[in-house]
């Protein structure tokens, strides 16, 4: 792609949108071809960085940040475009749509893409600063960044994919990046956690492949748009079979009960930026896929009752696990599982209000969960531990950290007027509007879960930050060594200033959802309407006039 032209287009993105719809047919760049950027650019950057290796650190960080910055800008442009013009489609390799693979940017995918790009950008800032801080290691730059970028490309590809097989490839892309990130440094605990994670992911991928084989055997296509039409003609049993297999594959990725046990087992050991992105994005990719699956391919199926039960169990088991934990990262992992239940509930309602709630919740949860994990990373950096039985007095030692943890924690548990409250409110209203005893029960369970989340995070905050300092830890600043896992005492007391700033930016992003609640909820509702209508998506992909 022509860089200067691309940049110029990005700068004049707003003007471009105002311009008449007709785009030069063989011009260098059309709005549609921008869809490839969030996928291709990080991959390209990862390749370049692998070629550079451990040298030229400044250039490397610049490449990572610029790449993710451009992705973010492109995503914003795409979101505005998809909202004003309807779904944008680009056919890869010039093959026409049902045969070739296409990338589709509709309201849902661009919205989550924007949020994920913003989050990955902040996390990249964090990891760049963090790598600079540890001058002695080359590995963070040489391995961490390419793996991270490959994962980001995979996430973007999964969001934009208009083809089931491409979705599989996207999953594999993001998973292979995440395998590297999770086992980073190859310490014993990470290898152990990596084994669990890799095998669960593999099992899920195999299930996905089986579902693909069945789907292709039954319909002769894997294009989502075409599948949406062809599934309607299939016998009910085949539909259920395909739906359940796909659902199982996605549910493992999204950590939905009873396939959620691997998550609190494997996430906490990874390096902080990796855990943060995993927690924020990877499970949401699973949720996104479930939303697509349920809304586009199998609207109004009998599976929604099952989904409601599963959502109920996910919420309760997750939050009860969170209450029992004494380690901050594990506690957060359990709340992560628990809150996936809210999104599944929204999807299971399969009404516009329910889906809009789920979409809003996805947006909120990506940001909040990532910032919580990043703050925990800062806490670990500062004190050398994340176990609340050993922490204490952090409020005195570092009031900034205390605030940075407190705000997203309250946001997560749904204190008004933060976005967590708004998301839960949307889901509660949707559940009550839907009626029936099961949705109403779920609403009640959701409220209980929210209370228990508040209990879990408040307990953690109180113990780690609020209570008096533990005498044995006072005045010691310890950093954990990425390579050996040993704790090394460090003499500096202050964190590099950009670390808290990157986290603060994420926290502020989470808070901004309250300020932007009007447009955001509107967008979520339009996205949900578009999803349930199905027609805009299908027509756009198959090239029909709506």
């Amino acid at each position, binding site marked *: 792609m022509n860089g200067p032209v691309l940049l110029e287009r990005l700068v004049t993105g707003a003007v471009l949108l105002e311009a008449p719809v007709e785009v030069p047919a063989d011009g260098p760049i059309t709005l549609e071809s921008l869809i490839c950027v969030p996928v291709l650019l990080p991959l390209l950057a990862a390749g370049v960085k692998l070629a550079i290796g451990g040298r030229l650190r400044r250039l490397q960080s610049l490449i990572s940040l610029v790449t993710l910055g451009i992705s973010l800008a492109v995503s914003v442009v795409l979101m505005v475009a998809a909202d004003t013009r309807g779904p944008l489609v680009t056919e890869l390799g010039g093959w026409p749509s049902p045969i070739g693979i296409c990338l589709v940017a509709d309201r849902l995918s661009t919205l989550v893409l924007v949020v994920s790009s913003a989050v990955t950008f902040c996390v990249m800032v964090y990891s760049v600063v963090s790598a600079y801080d540890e001058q002695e290691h080359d590995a963070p730059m040489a391995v961490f960044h390419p793996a991270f970028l490959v994962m980001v490309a995979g996430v973007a590809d999964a969001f934009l994919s208009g083809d089931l*097989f491409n979705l*599989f*490839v996207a999953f*594999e892309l993001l998973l*292979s990046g995440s*395998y*590297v990130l999770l*086992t980073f440094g*190859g*310490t*014993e*605990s990470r*290898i*152990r*956690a*990596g*084994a*669990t994670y*890799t*095998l669960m992911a*593999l*099992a899920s*991928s*195999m299930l996905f*492949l*089986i579902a*693909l*084989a*069945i789907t*292709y*055997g*039954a*319909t*002769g296509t*894997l294009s989502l748009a075409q599948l949406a039409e062809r599934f309607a003609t299939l016998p009910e049993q085949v539909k259920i079979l395909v739906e359940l297999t796909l659902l199982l594959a996605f549910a493992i990725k999204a950590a939905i009960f009873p396939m959620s046990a691997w998550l609190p*087992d494997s996430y*906490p050991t990874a390096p902080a930026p990796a855990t943060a992105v995993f927690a924020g994005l990877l499970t949401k990719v699973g949720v996104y896929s479930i939303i697509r699956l349920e809304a586009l391919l199998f609207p109004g199926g009998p599976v929604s009752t099952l989904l409601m039960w599963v959502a109920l169990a996910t919420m309760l088991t997750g939050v009860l696990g969170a209450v*029992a934990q*004494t*380690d901050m990262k*594990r506690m957060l992992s359990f709340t992560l599982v628990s809150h996936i239940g809210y999104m599944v509930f929204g999807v299971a309602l399969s009404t516009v209000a329910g889906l809009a709630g789920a979409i809003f919740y996805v947006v909120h949860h990506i940001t909040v969960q990532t910032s919580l994990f990043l703050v925990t990373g800062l806490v670990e950096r500062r004190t050398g531990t994340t*176990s609340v*039985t*050993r922490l204490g007095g952090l409020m005195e030692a570092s009031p900034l950290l205390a605030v940075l943890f407190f705000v997203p924690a309250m946001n997560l548990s749904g204190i008004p007027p933060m976005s967590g409250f708004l998301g839960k409110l949307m889901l509660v209203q949707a559940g009550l509007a839907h009626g029936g005893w099961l949705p109403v029960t779920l609403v009640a369970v959701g409220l209980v879960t929210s209370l228990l989340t508040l209990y879990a995070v408040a307990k953690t905050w109180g113990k780690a930050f609020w209570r008096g300092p533990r005498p044995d830890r006072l005045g010691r600043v310890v950093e954990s060594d990425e390579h050996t896992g040993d704790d090394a005492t460090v003499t500096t007391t202050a964190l590099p200033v950009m670390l808290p700033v990157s986290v603060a930016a994420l926290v502020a992003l989470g808070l901004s959802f309250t300020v932007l609640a009007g447009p955001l909820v509107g967008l979520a509702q339009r996205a949900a309407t578009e999803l349930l209508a199905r027609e805009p998506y299908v027509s756009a992909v198959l090239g029909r006039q709506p």
Partner: protein
Amino acid sequence: MNSVALMPFAACCVLITCGVTLLLERSLVRVLAGVIVLGNGVNLLIVTSGGDAGGPPFVDGTGIADPLPQAMVLTAIVITLGVTAFLLAMVHRSWQLTGSDEVQDDTEDRRIRLRSRRGELSDAVRARQHAYRRLVIEQRAELAKLEAEQAERERLEEADLERRIARVHDELGQWMRELRYEGMTEDELQQRLEEAGLRDDPGAMSNLERIEQLREEHERGRAEQAGRERELRKKLKARQRDARRQLRAAIRDERERQALAQDPELEGDDS
């Protein structure tokens, strides 16, 4: 939309079954083999979904072989290859670090299991303490009952004694009144009394002796009872000490067992 050939489909089923079985093993090498076998099974399934083998592609009519699944299978094979390579590296690293290729238990899981064991243990200790306390209470109640019975018996015996003494006094008074009535002087009466004492009046003497005897008997009974009680108390104390020692030994054993189970990795306290 082709009917599926039976043989390849059966092969898929066998491969997938074997793969899943191996995947459930704990040894990472077996798991790796499982991944490969499972991957092959699934890939074969995809090829099978493209139609019968040997058919020409892109020809109208029935019995054509769809080339698209083969393109997909190529992608899937490459991905499986990459993941297999990664898994191999991980198995090697795991072997380097721990000397075995078994997946280790999660330390946090172990800690939670330990905590639940500790909970069970403290429950058991509490139950035993409870039983012991109940035993002590029962024995005390038994003792108290014994004491009460004894006191009641003593009270009855004392009353009996009082009654008898009173009767003897009455008899003596009557006898003296009779003698006085017969016009005997006080001096004579005193003399007669002395005489009766010297004469060793069997009735009067026996009464006095009986009183003494009864008193002695009563004293002896009391001493015996006190001895018995002391004995009983001693026995009870011994039993209590025994029980306490046993309890302490059990707790110490369990602590040692836990200390053995404790891993150096399992740091942090569960307060």
